[in-house]
């Protein structure tokens, strides 16, 4: 069981991600944008952060950069949920310190397979 922070401004995506992960036995905390996520992250360490890229207030790339500034998130896997299959968005994510990405649309099985890559 891992502690996972799921960040997406879309409630349906958030619910889907969270439902899938909880179904696989993980403990999920939800946030609807980068600001909310960062606030949660400042309070507790997570084993994995899954974040959408395009969000109001603070987007996923900014969130990622901010999280890497926190001592307890220095090495935490951060995966971006992105629809962009083009390289430049992925590059921006990597530069900000993202571990990897999951390309939308994805289904629950793909999500679980991908997070297995980074969870112990």
């Amino acid at each position, binding site marked *: 069981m891992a502690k996972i922070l799921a960040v997406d401004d879309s409630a349906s995506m958030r619910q889907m991600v969270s439902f899938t992960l909880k*179904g696989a036995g993980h403990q999920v905390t939800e946030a609807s944008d980068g600001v909310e996520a960062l606030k949660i992250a400042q309070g507790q360490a997570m084993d994995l952060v899954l974040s959408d890229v395009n969000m109001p207030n603070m987007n996923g790339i900014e969130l990622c950069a901010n999280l890497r500034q926190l001592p307890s998130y220095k090495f935490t896997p*951060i995966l971006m949920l992105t629809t962009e*299959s083009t390289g430049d968005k992925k590059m921006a994510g990597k530069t900000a310190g993202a571990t990897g990405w999951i*390309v939308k*649309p*994805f289904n*629950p099985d*793909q999500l679980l397979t991908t997070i297995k*890559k980074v969870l112990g």
Partner: protein
Amino acid sequence: MSVDLSQFHQVFYEESYEGLDAMEQGLLEMNVDAPDDEIINTIFRSAHSIKGGSGTFGFMQVANFTHVLETLLDEVRSGDRSLNQTTMDLLLVSVDCMRDMLQALQNGEEPDMSNADDLRAQFEAILKNEDPSQALAQSANSKEGSDSGQPPSDKSGGDGAGADGKNGWSIDFIPEPQLLQTGNEPTRMFRQISELCDGNMSVTVKTDNLPSFSSLNPEHCFLNWHIDVHAPLEKSVIDEVFEWVIDDAEINIYPLGQSCEAESQKIQESEPDKQVTPAAVEPIAVTTSQSTDEKPKAPQKAAAPQESSSIRVDIDKVDNLINMVGELVITQSMLGELGENFDMGRVQRLQEGLAQLEHNTRELQESVMKIRMMPISFVFSRFPRLVRDTARKLDKKIDLVMSGENTELDKTVMEKLGDPMVHLIRNSMDHGVETPEERIKNGKSETGTVELKAYHQSGNIVIEIEDDGAGLNTERILQKARENGVISEDANLSEDQVFDLIFQPGFSTADVVSDLSGRGVGMDVVRRNIAALNGSIEVFSQKNKGSRFVIRLPLTLAILDGQLVQVEDQIYIFPLVSIVESIQYQGSELNNVGGHSDVLQLRDEYVPILLLNQTFGIQTENDDLDESIIVVVEADGEKIGVVVDELLGQQQVVIKSLEENYKKVEGISGATILGDGTVALIIDVSGLSKLSVTSLKDLDRKVKNHKAA
């Protein structure tokens, strides 16, 4: 593990509709020449979320369509493309198109893609910097199957992976020092490979680059690895393991037994395509299986009205409610304790407790009501678009000014308010505001204004729709009314009464019935719809200054301000809004017309009289009406006098449906339960006036003819 994605569909639809509303609003606010970054971002984000969600939940038609839109918006957002009016119009039309598609999907139908395909062709042309109108012609010539098309950026990759490597692979993995800082952990990758090849692998660590201990940064990675995989894996599978680190490491993958130089092919060459292909194909399969699955269900789904599905409630309101319930429980336990060993000495405490209970109940009731309350902006938000489109069609310049968008109103009332308001606004734009030329001629500014206001006033919500146009034309209204036989030739009416004529059935003042206002829905329907909500509508107008429509509505349909009246041993309730006045019965003021019905002369009007005990067949013991009261009520613009025995108090009553619990009764709109537990019926005033034998107009005419003769 299989997850039923359909459980998220409702939320997806709701947020998509919200997203579309946000897009629409953003597009309307946007200044084409100087676009605001924040607005473009919002529009982009909405399109992006809809695309992501629809792809995830298997609605590929929507996802594919939104994709071109998103691509375009992304170019605008990054400053690579400027907007023009054509693009803006196309974007607005697309919002409608997506809304239609989503609605069709929500109702379990297959969306009509012809519109979407046309739009998509136009967007694709814009993206290629061609003339969109030509693309339209092309797409008409060769209509491609809509759901076969994948997002254009998806080149179906596939590079005949694993041409060699039957014996296995060798991998050189030489990470950059900062690899660990992105949360990537080499051991995880090795573990993954190990799972793929069932452990038939060897990993050799190379420490050549390890610096001296004093200059070692513990957070950096200085180790290299050589991995031999003894299994005939596809190369793409191995590529995928290192997918996230190709930019942070040097990775060489070559068939086992060869040297690194033999195939020093870097991973990235084939990388970008692969992730996409499986991801994009999967949901298409979902779509087809779903549409066959859901076919039998479709009629049932379509029957359910889409509006009343769910409401979003502010968390504060819920917290408040929980707080109230807490208070109620405390009061209840206090009273319970009091009741256990009660003596007369504790009467005062009992009374206090009951007063507190009443207080709690009222607050709880108010809080529950508040849950159904939503800001009227839900209705208002569609009007900027309406005004923009209508003004264009009419060739008029019209500004829309809105205020009080946060005024709260019951959701049910709100849903029924939309259509009448659309009609009124169209009406103001079509008949009220003049053409720019006329306005200039009349010394007004070229641009007309339509103003929408909402505010609370003594337990009601008031909505005003005001224009600064020509005002109502009294002469034309009178002429029309005479032609249509709404009033008699010699009728002498005050200005207010003339204005009120526009609400009469079968009345339309437009000389030419335009496709905007004159679509068979007249102002009489507007008034009836509003009356059905227990509300009222009035019009005020001044020639050349403009007109103002004022709608008054109760805040909720579930509670009614009622006047209790007694007839024999029965109690009835009149909606307070419908009562004009109540007067003491005096036989001398009554006239008998036509032998069977009485009319009351009320100043210069004749009002038909109806005896409630006769209408509802209540046994009466005496026929003496001298002690009675006449309650003059008004509905649909007609007054009737209802004779009752006595006026009781006024109070708020909770409306219970008679139809659901019993059956529909003419002249009765519902029932309520009074404080003493008895049931009282609520009078349906407009139904009652229909029950009375003759309507006001006939009577009025008869009386007047009678007098004239």
